[in-house]
């Protein structure tokens, strides 16, 4: 949920609640006021009637005077003084239906010792109408006020948060391996400036650490090259010595293999840091199907040896604009990966479309989390001897050219998909 939506929504919720509660209170208050007023008039009328009865000892026709229902009944026996006022439902001849009335009942005894009862009915409809009108106009005022407030709040918030979104946009576009450190524009809001400063400081530190680490990696890999080359050549000379027995050869073989692996690893790391440093500048237009055919051909004997069937489906000519060396490494890694992790008599399916390319191979299910697949040194449990840099290199090359690499496992096929290839006519 967006910040603005969230605040606006809470604003509306709270306002509506306050509105309902206050509306209820206002309604009740008005209701009570009107009732009290009505009761006062009823009592006044009652007093007037009583006074008249006491004065003239007769019952006048009040109906004409007050214009509503008054009923005075003379009783023969004296009555105790009693009475009440309450709401009642009665047939309203004016409306033609039952309606609410305020009813005053009073018992009293006149001077001539005759008891009488007074019943006065006053319709509530007028006051109810008034209350409804008041409530309606109040809610109209309130609703428009609420709308206005929400709108004003929305627009103010939108303006106020603009620098925040700018910072956010800047941040999400920033990559730590970019050539320049993160720089955020100044805003006129103190808190956002603080935020920018904190972010800049943090990213500067991270960037510095990153650069140091990268430099160390590069130097380490580079400096290891020569000693490794020396070890390898000396071992090769040692192997040629005539008087080695089998156990010595066995030892040498293990050392040699380990050295070769280390050397491969080192080359892989060097390649990655070269890619990261963007040292492959020269680009060419590369025909994807051509380079695929070449690579498949290169591994042809290996493919035959394993009984793997290759299915090519080049639906559309596709071109990549990239460094030819990197293109070759990318495709070679993908193809050799598809061979290496294949099963005996398996399949490889190549699918080239205008802007996507997939390579799928049969293979046993991996235990590795697909998300970890592109990490360095992630090795298949079936091939513990591999160096584990292949897919990491693929990812690095893809990143360099804004290509997307996805892995999928479906129906026994491991599929790697390279997408968002730039369209070239």
């Amino acid at each position, binding site marked *: 949920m967006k910040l603005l939506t969230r605040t606006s929504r809470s604003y509306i919720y709270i306002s509506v609640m306050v509105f309902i509660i206050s509306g209820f209170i206002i309604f009740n208050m008005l209701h009570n006021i009107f009732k009290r007023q009505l009761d006062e008039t009823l009592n006044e009328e009652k007093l007037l009637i009583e006074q008249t009865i006491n004065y003239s000892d007769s019952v006048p026709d009040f109906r004409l005077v007050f214009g509503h229902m008054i009923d005075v009944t003379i009783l023969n026996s004296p009555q105790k003084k009693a009475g009440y006022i309450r709401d009642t439902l009665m047939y309203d001849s004016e409306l033609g239906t039952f309606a609410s009335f305020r009813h005053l009942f009073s018992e009293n005894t006149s001077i001539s010792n005759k008891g009488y009862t007074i019943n006065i009915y006053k319709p509530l409809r007028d006051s109810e109408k008034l209350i409804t009108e008041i409530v309606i106009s109040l809610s109209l005022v309130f609703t428009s006020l609420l709308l206005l407030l929400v709108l004003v709040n929305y627009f103010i918030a939108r303006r106020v948060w603009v620098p925040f979104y700018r910072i956010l946009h800047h941040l999400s576009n920033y990559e730590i391996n970019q050539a320049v450190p993160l720089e955020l524009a100044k805003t006129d809001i103190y808190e956002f400036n603080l935020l920018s400063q904190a972010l800049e400081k943090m990213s500067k530190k991270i960037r510095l650490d990153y650069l140091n680490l990268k430099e160390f990696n590069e130097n380490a890999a580079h400096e290891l*090259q*020569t000693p*490794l*080359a*020396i070890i*390898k*050549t*000396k071992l*090769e*000379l040692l*192997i*040629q010595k005539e008087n080695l027995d*089998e156990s010595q*050869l*066995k030892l*040498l*073989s293990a050392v*040699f*293999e380990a050295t*070769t*692996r280390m*050397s*491969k690893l080192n*080359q892989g790391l*060097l*390649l990655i840091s070269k890619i990261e440093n963007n040292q*492959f500048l*020269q680009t060419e237009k590369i025909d994807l199907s051509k380079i695929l055919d070449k690579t498949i051909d*290169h*591994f042809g*004997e*290996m493919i035959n*040896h394993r009984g793997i069937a290759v299915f090519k489906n080049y639906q559309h000519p596709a071109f990549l604009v990239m*460094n*030819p*060396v990197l293109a070759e*490494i990318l495709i*070679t*890694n993908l193809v*050799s990966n598809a*061979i*290496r992790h294949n099963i005996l008599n398996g399949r490889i399916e190549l699918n080239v479309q205008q802007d996507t390319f997939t390579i799928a191979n049969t293979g046993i299910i991996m235990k590795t989390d697909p998300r970890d697949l592109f990490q360095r040194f992630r090795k298949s449990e079936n*091939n513990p*001897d*591999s*160096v584990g840099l*292949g897919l990491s290199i693929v990812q690095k090359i893809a990143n360099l050219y804004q290509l997307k690499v996805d892995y999928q496992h479906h129906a026994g096929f491991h599929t790697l998909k390279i997408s968002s290839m730039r369209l070239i006519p």
Partner: protein
Amino acid sequence: MKILLIEDEKELSGSILEYLQKENYLCEAVPDFEHALEKINLYQYDCIVVDINLPDGNGLNLIRVLKEIKSETGIIIISARNSLDDKITGLEIGADDYLTKPFHLPELNARIKSIIRRRSFGGVNEIVFNDLRVLPEQMEVTVSGQSLILTKKEYDLLVFFLSNKDRILTRESIAEHLWGDEMDMADSFDFIYTHIKNLRKKIMEKGGEDYIKTVYGMGYKFTDQ
């Protein structure tokens, strides 16, 4: 055969010399640009192996000098920089081959031999080993006069063996020779074995001897001893 090695790393240079000396080459090694310049101006070599990154200059300039004096020398560049630019420039200005460090000694040896073979116009441009005869230009192999039909990889393998006869070739160096360094080693070992088995079978079918000896845990050796 005279070979000049220009390499600043003393140990590496020593190893290369030791390996090549067994081939009855006359090998000289210099550690820097200046000495190399002196040598190439004074003497004639059949092959020059030059490192690009020298402490006092760029090896590529040595190649330019060689071309200026119209030297017929074969040139192999060895460089730690796996850079396409260097490779292209090097080959453009007249180098014959390019090897990236670290390389296997048998690989360098095979490349030197191939260059020397190609350059020996008029001379015997063929490899003979007992009853085996290889004509590199036609890519033809005969066993006691009978022609042998080999696949490209089997042929490459045989030439590699013949260039390094009586030496142990590790499986790693064979794999790298046949498929380049992008091949993951572990996969290719049993594959190499199949190729060697086939090659052996084909030679023996034509009445040839089995020259390929397996060296336990290590690799193979092509020898008649």
